[in-house]
């Protein structure tokens, strides 16, 4: 029976169209015993392939289709040494794709079978490879005659392969589209050398016999060769630096010392409870040989003060005492067993967040300490998603950016629709889209390339450290950013047994750090991050209870702000619950929990579920899923843990039906009723997509409290840091509006007072140079450097001291940076002087003719601000329009007094979330603001179908809707929506023509939701 030894999946960058699962299924359906996955220059999806092959009873072979500038060969791993050499060779190709085959293989050919079909390749290889390991490849495109000639010339056997790139011949069009995307070409610009012809599909044995009727032996050889390849892939052991017995003992001792010294700092004195917990944890840690791992993490964490531990590691008192995590597990009842339990054999993950701008320094330290040979970062594999697929295919078919945006803007970031065409045809948000034949073809091809591997990038923080040489476990490459990465993404890394430490960048930690720094400047004493006690602070809790949490880590989205306000209970334990329950699939349970918080009687679904008491009888944390599986369905520790993974990982979604059956059967066997089993499974399923364990949520909630404390007591310093670090859910406009609501005055950038970022001090917030569009980074740097020598005293002084482009001088002028430097001059006079000074290298004192000295009109000022910052700063964007509606619209602050009434409101669009009803109809939650407050609206399906599209193009709106109230929180159910500018134009056409300020800031120029800064 023939088996395929040269197949490419969609992990072969922009070539293959079939997923590894489809290839495996195809091989199984054709009765093949083995299958080799030979991606072009990589093992990008090998771990997934092995898993799928095992599921289908196929023996997986590791291979690579090595394509260099001059050669094209197939390498197959005979044994473990062969696999290691395969990884090394692929890494070498990544290092330098121009190397010849001989150079690549000369020192790494042991344990490898090589298939080649070009005489220029076979000649050098035949000199050092034995004929038992070198074969002539007969593939589509090579004639039988050519293969036999080569066989005779080099005295080698022939092996037939399918050189598979797609499943069906009809998929060749999709392959061509991928090639065109890769080549940045149109379909008609591709040459035959750029793509494979129709013969490169997954051929059956019969098809191949028809194609190669005189080479039956070559076809049989494929089977014989497959049987000689390594197929027993086993990844159970964690790969971590091995240590001698003595070293392990010393590591244990060292850890004990560090933990007790940290405990003294954390607790003041070591009580019996603390001591007992430390001893218990240390016993398990040292007993399992994890002590060196903790020391490595501790060594990394020492580099900075501000960190938080995420994941289950936050349940450990050892981590807490080593300052790896910031939540006291004793105080908040965090179970250590979620992290390390007696049955756990694999290494636990410790994930740590660092301030985003310090993380690169931390990574440099890790690479320096452990060396490039042992260290690499985890990759992020970027695949074609609906938006990118439509964009790329659209370009191949020649659509303009605007035409492409008309589709992609409506798709949304997180959309994962396999049935793209059908969805776009039927969904309301696309109803204004003109679907012509070209667009339909684009959608059809886009749908087919969904999931194709585009390129690897660097994972935000995953680092791998191995005991010896990383290149023998997985191929590595250098990312464009300059760091060494492995080919696999985090899930494959984890499944392959490589030890991963997540060192992630967190913008909110930088926000806290910067806010503390700003407060420290005028308080002349810096607050210590570790000593802030936000929990229990009245002002902090009042702020959270009111839902005024914009800018606060993790609890600032409209949904969470509303949840906080609705619940009205904001102690630490509850905030931990809220952080966990806000997830896409748990809406139903959120409302149920709110009712229970507000006093609705409830009881546990079953007395055995006593561990759900802390969360109102609802499954909120991951460990509650595992505990339910263990207590109710009889799962073991490992099984229960795997169930959690199956539910939360999209890549394991196909296993859900199997585990559902197992869960329900398990419960029935233990005598529970089927209704209860199904009810509990519903709760388990609400964890799909993503979910958290309690220690993780507690860790995050602590940072939320710290941020809330800073916002409550130092709003200007806090919000300026949020904008500077670009660290939030909203754009800079929304945060500046929030600052105004806190009574803070926004000051325009000033050449002598602004820093690079925004700066806050008490009730003032000064915009930074980074807010100015089109201002070059180098100019900011030179202004700041020159200012160290003293403030600028005049325009002449500035232009004499700072060298800059005219465009930058214009940007600074238009942003109002020189206003205080030339206080007695109008903007037009300043602009004239700036232009002349720049052109005369800082000399002269020209003024414009009298006619050009007038102060700016209102329209001119607004236009300049929009051009400079993306939004008006000195007045609210709605103010030019409000006089037209006085008395006919309500303000946001009036909403609570209008419950049950239908009112008109004007608003600036802030953010939105498109979601679906239970009937799968699209609806939307939208946030607007006017000059008095921010308010939440909902658009139900019929209204969304009518007006939803408007939000893609407009920013200023007028709306009509009914005010509703739930748990003391108000929302407006929109009935009608219109562009504010169009409404004014329609109602007052003459006014509109006479008042240019009304035409300023059309949707195309206006960008309040964009973060303008670099």
């Amino acid at each position: 029976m023939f088996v395929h030894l040269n197949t490419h999946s969609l992990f072969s960058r922009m070539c293959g169209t079939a997923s590894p699962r489809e290839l495996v299924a195809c091989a199984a359906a054709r009765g093949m015993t083995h299958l080799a996955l030979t991606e072009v220059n990589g093992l990008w999806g090998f771990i997934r392939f092995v898993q799928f092959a095992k599921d289908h009873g196929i023996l997986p072979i590791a291979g690579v289709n090595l394509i260099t500038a001059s050669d094209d060969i197939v390498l197959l791993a005979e044994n473990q040494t062969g696999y290691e050499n395969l990884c090394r060779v692929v890494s070498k190709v990544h290092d330098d794709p121009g190397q010849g085959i001989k150079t690549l293989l000369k020192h790494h050919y042991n344990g490898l079978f090589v298939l080649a079909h070009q005489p220029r390749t076979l000649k050098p290889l035949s000199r050092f490879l034995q004929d038992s390991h070198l074969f002539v490849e007969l593939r589509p495109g090579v004639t039988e005659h050519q293969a036999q000639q080569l066989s005779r010339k080099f005295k080698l056997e022939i092996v037939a392969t399918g050189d598979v790139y797609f499943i069906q011949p009809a998929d060749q069009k999709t392959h061509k589209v991928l090639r065109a995307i890769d080549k940045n070409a149109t379909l008609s610009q591709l040459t035959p050398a750029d793509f494979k012809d129709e013969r490169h599909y997954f051929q059956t044995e019969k098809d191949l016999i028809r194609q190669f009727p005189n080479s039956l032996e070559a076809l049989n050889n494929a089977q014989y060769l497959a049987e000689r390849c390594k197929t027993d892939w086993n990844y159970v052991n964690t790969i971590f630096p091995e240590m001698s017995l003595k070293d392990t003992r010393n590591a244990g001792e060292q850890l004990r010392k560090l933990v007790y010294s940290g405990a003294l700092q954390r607790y003041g004195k070591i009580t019996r409870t603390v001591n007992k917990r430390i001893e218990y944890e240390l016993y398990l840690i040292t007993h399992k040989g994890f002590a060196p791992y903790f020391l490595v993490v501790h060594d990394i964490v020492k580099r900075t003060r501000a960190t938080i531990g995420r994941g289950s590691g936050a349940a450990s008192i050892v981590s807490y005492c080593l300052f790896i995590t910031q939540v006291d597990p004793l105080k908040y009842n965090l179970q250590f067993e979620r992290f390390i339990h007696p049955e756990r054999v694999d290494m636990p993950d410790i994930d740590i967040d660092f301030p985003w701008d310090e993380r690169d320094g931390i990574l440099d330290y890790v690479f320096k300490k452990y060396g490039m040979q042992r260290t690499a970062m985890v990759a992020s594999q970027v695949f074609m998603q609906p938006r990118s697929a439509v964009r790329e295919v659209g370009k191949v078919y020649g659509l303009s950016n605007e035409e492409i945006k008309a589709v992609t803007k409506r798709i949304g970031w997180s959309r994962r629709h396999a049935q793209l065409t059908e969805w776009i045809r039927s969904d309301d948000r696309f109803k204004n889209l003109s679907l012509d034949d070209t667009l339909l073809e684009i959608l059809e091809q886009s749908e087919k390339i969904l999931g194709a591997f585009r390129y690897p990038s660097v994972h935000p923080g995953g680092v791998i450290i191995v005991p010896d040489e990383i290149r023998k476990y997985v191929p590595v490459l250098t990312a464009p950013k300059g760091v060494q990465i492995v080919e696999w993404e985090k899930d494959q890394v984890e499944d392959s047994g490589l030890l991963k430490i997540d060192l992630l960048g967190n913008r909110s930690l930088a926000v806290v750090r910067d806010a503390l720094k700003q407060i420290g400047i005028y308080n002349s004493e810096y607050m210590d991050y570790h000593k802030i006690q936000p929990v229990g602070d009245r002002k902090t809790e009042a702020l959270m209870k009111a839902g005024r949490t914009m800018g606060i880590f993790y609890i600032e989205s409209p949904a969470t702000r509303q949840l906080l306000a609705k619940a009205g209970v904001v102690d630490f334990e509850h905030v931990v619950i809220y952080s966990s329950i806000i997830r896409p699939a748990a809406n139903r349970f959120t409302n149920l929990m709110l009712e229970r918080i507000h006093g609705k009687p409830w009881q546990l679904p079953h007395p055995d579920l006593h561990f759900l008491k802390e969360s109102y009888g609802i499954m909120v944390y991951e460990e509650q899923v595992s505990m339910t599986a263990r207590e109710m369905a009889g799962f073991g520790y490992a099984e229960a843990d795997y169930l959690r993974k199956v539910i939360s990982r999209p890549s394991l979604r196909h296993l859900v039906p199997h585990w559902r059956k197992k869960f329900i059967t398990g419960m029935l066997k233990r005598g529970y009723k089927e209704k209860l089993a199904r009810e509990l499974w519903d709760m388990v399923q609400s964890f799909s997509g993503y979910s958290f364990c309690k220690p993780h949520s507690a860790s995050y909630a602590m940072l939320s409290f710290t941020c809330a404390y800073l916002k409550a007591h130092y709003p200007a310093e806090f919000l300026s840091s949020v904008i500077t670090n670009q660290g939030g859910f909203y754009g800079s406009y929304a945060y500046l509006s929030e600052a105004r609501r806190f009574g803070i005055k926004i000051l325009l950038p000033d050449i002598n007072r602004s820093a690079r970022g925004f700066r806050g001090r008490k009730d003032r917030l000064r915009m930074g140079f980074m807010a100015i569009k089109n201002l070059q980074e180098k100019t900011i740097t030179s202004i700041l450097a020159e200012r160290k020598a003293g403030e600028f005293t005049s325009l002449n002084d500035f232009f004499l001291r700072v060298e800059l482009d005219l465009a930058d001088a214009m940007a600074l002028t238009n942003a109002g940076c020189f206003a205080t430097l030339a206080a007695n001059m109008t903007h037009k006079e300043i602009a004239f002087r700036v232009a002349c000074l720049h052109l005369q290298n800082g000399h002269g004192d020209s003024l414009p003719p009298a006619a050009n000295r007038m102060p700016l009109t209102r329209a001119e000022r607004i236009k300049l601000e929009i051009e400079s910052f993306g939004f008006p700063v000195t007045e609210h964007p709605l103010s030019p329009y409000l006089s037209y509606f006085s008395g006919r619209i309500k303000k946001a602050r009036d909403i609570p007094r209008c419950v049950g009434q239908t009112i008109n409101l004007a608003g600036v669009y802030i953010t939105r979330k498109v979601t679906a009803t239970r009937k799968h109809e699209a609806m939307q939650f939208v946030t607007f603001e006017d000059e008095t407050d921010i308010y939440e609206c909902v658009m139900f399906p019929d209204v969304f179908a009518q007006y939803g599209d408007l939000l893609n193009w407009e920013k200023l709106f007028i709306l009509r809707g009914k005010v509703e109230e739930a748990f003391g929180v108000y929302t407006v159910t929109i009935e009608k929506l219109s562009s504010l500018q169009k409404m004014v134009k329609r109602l007052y056409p003459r006014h509109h023509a006479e008042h240019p300020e009304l035409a300023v800031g059309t949707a195309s120029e206006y960008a309040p939701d964009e973060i303008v800064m670099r």
Partner: protein
Amino acid sequence: MLDASLRTRALAVISSHRQNGTIVALSSEAIQEGLQPGMKVSLARKMSHSAILLPYNTVLYDRMNRYLYHTLSAFSPLVEPASFGQFYTDMTGMDNIYRSQKQAAALISKNIQSKVSLISQVGISSSKLVSSISTAVVPEKINEVETGNEPKFLAPLPSELLPAIQEKPVKRIVDFLFLHCIRNLQSVVRQDDTGRLLFGPYYRRVAMETQGQDTSVVKPPRYRNHIIEQKVLTADTNDETILRPVVQHLAEQVAFQLRQRHQVAGSISLEIHYTDGFRNARKGSVRFNDDKTVTDVCQDLFTRVNYRRNRIRSVFVDAGRLKTTANQLNLFEDQQAQDLALAAAMDKIRSKYGFTSVVPLSALRA
């Protein structure tokens, strides 16, 4: 207006009736209905059921243009076509024939309206620039700007009407200094040093234009140093199997005209207009005027100019710096003699049976 019933109706001239054809020009009524130039025909149909979509009729426009040219030629020997439907005429020395310039303008207008039902705008002045601006901004059918009054006439108008303002460095300064009115510009350039400082090499041009000065003369077509051929595609496309034959066809048309004039082009430029409004052009030169030479150069220019994947709406070939051909064959190459002989043979056929009587096979395939 050939069909009076279309008057006051929403009209759109489209590149083709296909789904992805686009709107090329619109009547004011169509604009009021929300249609815009460049909009897809399918969307236009959806948006405005009452709009009449007329296909782009190059032959008709060409015929009308020629007719207008001939009409104007009856009033003055010096007529220069500017673009479709726009002409400059030099009326110097016509004082003895017409009582005044205005009378001549009225006669021209009347003549055009009675014969082709088109309403014309006439701007009279001593410079081409002011006349052209006058027809664009003054609502009256005939407007005369008296010599010496040009600066006063221009003063209240927007600066962007001046061609020099379209130059990027000038526009940047004009926007930055809020010189949005020609009056402001006039006051700035009046200060010689400041004007020179701000506008650098463009100063002289800006200063002249703000005063309404334009020294260019009216050039009849025979003195024009350009041959321009263009093609608006029936449907926007990025398919090279369609585009390359179009380029070839345009190149052959240019080569044909060069041969008719016994000239070669010192510069030949190929410009493409994409559907998103982006334009791109590349320049080359041709030393011979046989079809093969011109086509090869144009195809090479097309390869270099079309580096984007966006669909193309129209292609232009502009041959300039025309000079008389030396007609000297290369004695060392037979091929060139053959190419010229073939071109001469084709010209004979084309002169007798029309240009499209001989079409390359690739064009038929496309």
